[in-house]
């Protein structure tokens, strides 16, 4: 491969996000396989701390794109900055985390530099001359292998958790830190007015020992007592996937997942939940996970310890009864 591989990192209020190191880990693997140099990229109003942390990793260089216009984040400023850097340096492959922020601007970048863009990648392998990127379309129910159709500049974004931040290897010495000049004179069209947390979660599920979570498989709000009774028998908190809250069958403070709460109870029972990645990130570190789903191929089973394939309306009432008996309350 001709040009360098860039691993574009992302920073938050507390400095570099851990997904940044996941991108470095993937970049290191690709750099080795393809024989290309890997460079880390920092974009920030002040990128010095991030640059130093990245320079300790096994990278050829750290490119720092620093400009007051990069804070707060806006898609126009980020796109303009990286378009300029890419035009100047001509990397061949640019890696990003598939974060809420990158979803907002990296497709614009791809359009502006006329790049191929394979998003939300979970793995890669080399197949002859092709670098194959694996995605999970159809809401994670299927996998697909994807390759770039052209040799121009290409872009990949990585699903969070697909590569391990701990795998980002340290370098022999500190890598060179290069300031990448950009000119962001054109004002961003987006005005950031306010960043806020809606309401303090009324229900704090993060402390619950046992959680019964219900998904769209419940069908309608009137059926909720089926899972409410199970939760009651277990002394569990009731939680839900996003569609259940979107439909206002349960309040939003019961939502588990990337836009809801993250929980780690001893026991998590997922009822009628398919197991989309945005749900899994909120619960996959629970102690014991049980899934009840009529679809044997539902992705939720891949993170579960125990599964029952069948109709929740048969299984859940039975489970409620047997739990009550086991607890001597039946």
């Amino acid at each position: 491969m001709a040009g360098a591989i860039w691993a574009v990192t992302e920073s938050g209020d507390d400095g570099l996000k851990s997904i940044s190191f996941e991108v470095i880990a993937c970049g290191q693997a690709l750099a080795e396989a393809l024989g290309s140099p890997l460079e880390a990229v920092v974009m920030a109003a002040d990128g010095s701390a991030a640059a130093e942390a990245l320079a300790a990793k096994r990278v050829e260089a750290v490119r720092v794109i620093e400009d007051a216009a990069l804070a707060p984040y806006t898609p126009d400023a980020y796109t303009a900055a990286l378009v300029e850097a890419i035009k100047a340096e001509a990397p061949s492959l640019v890696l990003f985390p598939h974060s809420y922020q990158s979803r907002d601007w990296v497709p614009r970048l791809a359009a502006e530099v006329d790049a191929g863009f394979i998003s939300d990648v979970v793995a890669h392998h080399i197949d002859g001359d092709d670098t194959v990127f694996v995605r999970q379309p159809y809401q994670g129910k299927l996998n697909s292998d994807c390759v770039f159709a052209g040799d121009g500049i290409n872009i990949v974004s990585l699903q969070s958790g697909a590569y391990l931040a701990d795998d980002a290897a340290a370098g022999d010495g500190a890598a060179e830190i290069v300031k990448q000049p950009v000119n962001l004179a054109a004002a961003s069209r987006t005005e950031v007015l306010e960043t806020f947390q809606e309401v303090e979660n009324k229900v704090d599920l993060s402390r619950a020992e046992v959680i019964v979570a219900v998904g769209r498989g419940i069908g309608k709000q009137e059926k909720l007592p089926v899972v409410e009774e199970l939760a009651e028998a277990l002394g569990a908190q009731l939680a839900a996937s996003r569609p259940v809250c979107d439909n206002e069958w349960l309040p939003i403070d019961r939502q588990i997942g990337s836009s809801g709460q993250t929980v780690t109870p001893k026991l998590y029972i997922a009822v009628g939940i398919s197991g989309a990645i945005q749900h899994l990130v909120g619960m996959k570190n629970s102690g014991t996970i049980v899934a009840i789903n009529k679809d044997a191929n539902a992705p939720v089973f891949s993170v579960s310890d125990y599964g029952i394939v069948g109709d929740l309306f048969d299984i859940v009432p039975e489970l409620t009864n047997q739990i009550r008996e086991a607890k001597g309350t039946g």
Partner: protein
Amino acid sequence: MKIAVCIKQVPEGDAHLKIDADGISIADADLATEINESDQYALEAGLRLVESQGGEVVVVCLGRDRADEAIRRALAMGAERAIHLNDPAFQGGDAAATARALTAAIERENVDLILTGLQSDDAGWAQTGPILAARLGWPSATLIMEIEPEGDTIKVKRELEAGWFQWLRLPLPALLTIQSGISTVRYATLKGIMGAKKKEITKVTPVDIGLAPDEVGAAGRKTRTTRLYVPEKTKGAEIIEGDAATAVATLVEKLQKEAKVL
């Protein structure tokens, strides 16, 4: 306010997905379909804006003949008319190729606002909306949960991670990608369904919108899917067999004795 809403027809959430003989797509005989979930919310948001501000919603859909069903449903919900990008040349595109086609179709409509879903439930690129905006040179914002029109600008609430949000202001024209949950999606009424039959669906080919057939679809794409398959199960749940009573009895025993969580 004139609003274009992009809707994609996708397999129904519960549909049985059978991989086609070509090894890269889903067999579509008897496949149950629906309007992509976040696109339904985008359409709802567009219809509400028109109800409060006046104007019209035009739905734009790239898909085969059978996408007519999704388009009719959108018209029945209240969209004024539709543009259907329907030609074999449009098929097989990635997000870049699809966005190029959608851009060319919408460009000639002089809309003030474009709404798309935040991602498709089948391909799941989460790219098409912002690419469209970039091609038009318009500002964009993604994962939108609320829209407040303010004349030449709009104020929008964007979802961030873990319960955080942000208010932004953008000048019009602009593109927004809509997150599900923005407002409850209406059902098509019987009157709406009857009315939809009389509404106009403009079918367009690449040439109609000023594009060469090799700029769109499979010929215009920059990425290629080489294989679609059921993932190999590396680790996974121990599936407990038996009828409901037996399976549940086994599960309870395992939760007590193995996992020790009961």
